[in-house]
């Protein structure tokens, strides 16, 4: 699942678990960049009762990038400038019989106070923010995606959304792109989401760029030529996504090369020939693990990975790239990994959530209100 439970630490500590990152040009306000981070996935909690941690900094980082090289070995050049949107929350207060929580978005355009769950969000100079519980916009059939990894075959479709009705805690930013890096900066930005500790000692707890890098690709140990007994994902999540340390790069490369070669083999033909060192053509591109958005292009629902794939082909990209909420990244990614678009679309049979996202701020659908509150239970039920 996108980045749900992507590693032992996130599985054991759902409050730090970033499930998804989205970045796209605003469909309703051209020139504005929308950034969305979802965290804390849960199916069995009443939507209004879940609160953000006051010990976590929910942070979305943005840097300008440019296309450095194209063709095989295509790469981005990531700028040193960085803008970040850091959401912190305070201890909730009792109000009208319920807990009310507030927070602050620390943005490069100033701090913005936000009340959790306020539908209209809060405004600042050139920036609008939202924080609250929403319906998890991700959709996947885990029987399909997991079955594919376990059996090394393309399974039959059952078409059940494994996260149907699940809620998440979301932070949303809509910012005027021109105000981020000044007029001289190019139109392309790279985006990463992180949860870090919010004390004097700061530690990165989880980090997400593209969806399913950790789960679809890094979770599979069996095809790794170097580490076959290591869940490498916690190590990877601790890294600065804009600058991976050289210490573990070899291990990450080995994991991606082996895992993606397995995907490529599933239809019985090779669409991604490895080089003489066994390197998959997508490995370096995916290890530049951030969403890339070209703000000079209009909103496009299906831009996910289009910029990166065009770069690999040595062709100019046509869309804004990034990632839109309703885009079926499971089908897109599996199709790319298995046949590189040279065959039929590989589908898990789940094409949308029950309530797709809207094109209006805060974009994410309202949370599933269920389960409703229970009467208190005391002792052993009769």
């Amino acid at each position, binding site marked *: 699942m996108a980045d749900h439970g992507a590693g032992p630490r996130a599985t054991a500590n759902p409050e730090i678990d970033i499930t998804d990152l989205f970045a796209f040009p605003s469909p309703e306000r051209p020139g504005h960049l929308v950034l969305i981070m979802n965290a804390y996935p849960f199916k*069995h*909690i009443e939507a209004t009762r879940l609160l953000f941690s006051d010990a976590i900094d929910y942070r979305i980082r943005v840097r300008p990038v440019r296309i450095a090289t194209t063709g095989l070995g295509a790469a981005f050049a990531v700028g040193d400038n960085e803008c970040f949107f850091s959401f912190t929350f305070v201890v909730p207060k009792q109000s009208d019989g319920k807990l009310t929580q507030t927070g602050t978005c620390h943005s490069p355009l100033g701090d913005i106070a936000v009340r959790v769950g306020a539908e209209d969000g809060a405004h600042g100079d050139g920036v609008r923010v939202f924080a609250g519980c929403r319906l998890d916009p991700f959709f996947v059939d885990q029987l399909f995606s997991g079955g594919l990894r376990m059996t090394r075959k393309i399974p039959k479709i059952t078409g059940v959304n494994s996260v149907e009705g699940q809620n998440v805690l979301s932070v949303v930013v809509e910012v005027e792109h021109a105000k981020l890096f000044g007029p001289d900066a190019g139109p392309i930005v790279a985006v990463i989401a992180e949860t870090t500790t919010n004390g004097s000692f700061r530690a990165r*707890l989880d980090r997400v760029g593209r969806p399913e890098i950790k789960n679809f690709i890094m979770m599979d140990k069996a095809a790794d030529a170097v580490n076959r007994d290591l869940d490498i994902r916690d190590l990877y999540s601790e890294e600065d996504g804009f600058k991976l340390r050289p210490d573990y790069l070899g291990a990450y490369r080995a994991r991606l090369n082996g895992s993606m070669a397995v995907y490529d083999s599933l239809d019985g033909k090779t669409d991604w020939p490895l080089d003489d060192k066994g390197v998959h053509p997508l490995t370096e591109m995916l290890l530049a693990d951030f969403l890339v958005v070209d703000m000079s292009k209009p909103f496009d629902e299906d831009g996910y990975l289009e910029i990166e794939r065009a770069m690999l082909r040595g062709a100019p990209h046509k869309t804004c790239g990034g990632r839109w909420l309703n885009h079926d990244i499971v089908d897109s990614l599996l199709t790319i990994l298995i046949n590189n678009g040279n065959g039929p679309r590989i589908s898990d049979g789940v094409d949308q959530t029950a309530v797709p996202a809207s094109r209006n701020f805060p974009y994410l659908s309202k949370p599933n209100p269920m389960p409703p509150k229970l009467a208190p239970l005391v*002792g052993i039920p009769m």
Partner: protein
Amino acid sequence: MDAFSSCASPRTTDGTIALSNLEAHIDGLELSRCRGELDSPAWSELIDLITLRAQIRGRIADYERASALAEQCALDAPADGLGLLTRARTRAALHRFDEALADLDSAERFGSPDPEVEAERAAILQAVGRYDEALALRRTAAERRADFESLAGLASLHAELGEITAAETWFDESWRCFRSVSPFPIALLEFQRGHMWLRHGDFKCARQWFEAAWGRLPAYAQAEGHLAEVEYELGERNGAIARLRRLASVADDPDYAVQLARMLAETDHLDEAGMWCEHAEKRYEQIVARHPAAFADHAADFWLSVGNEPQRALSLAKLNLKVRNTPGARALFARAIIACGDMPGTRQRH
């Protein structure tokens, strides 16, 4: 030795937020269970969360609820390793150690992950005084993966053995490995550390750790109860009594009433002491009847102290010793024998 660690205290989610999320999670899972929507991992999650709430809130009703759910879960799916592992935890919580160990053997046969089973087994062996076996398992776990849980396990074992220096080292090490913001594991660790210093007779050190745990999680009843105990020993009697009055009036665990009665008696508030003593007696009679092994030690201690019925204490201390042959259980049994020798069959009340 500087008992209060020089390690920076990890910042964790505020106790109100964490407890609200925990309660909401439990309620949601309970509702899904009523609708028949829970799979095996979700059943175990529900039971573990209720047990966690029991540890924090100190509610016996929660331990009973977790136990009832775990028994039902294992009955419905007798070959589910996870269900058996979960039942082992709830049985161990109620001191049904032999049954818990048998569950762990079965869980292992039905495919529960070895490290999880071994961690539970180590905790039970430690609880029943089989320290060498527990230490071997704890060391293996720490060598396999030196993370927060495995190092905290080593710390708790050394603490129980009274090996303060080793325990402090491992407490610090486990703290350093903490990579989360949940207050629950850290508060539980701070409580264990306070308990170690309390047993060692260093009330100032104990107080620091109980205060740390209670400050992190203000709903942590056991931490506040022990904090009151050390405050009393340090001469802050009125504050300690006020804390215990509040705790005893809402708790279904009579331990707070016992401590309160003792303090009130020692400060010459005999009428109120007698009231709390009666309250504790009634409650112990109920819970010992339901869970004799789980409450034998505390009930024996009650009847040896303010309850003042040594014969009754002796039979419970004997049961406790049968369940777990630890130095503490042996000392309790010895106290009961001596008390019976001093005043056989007599009963004096405050």
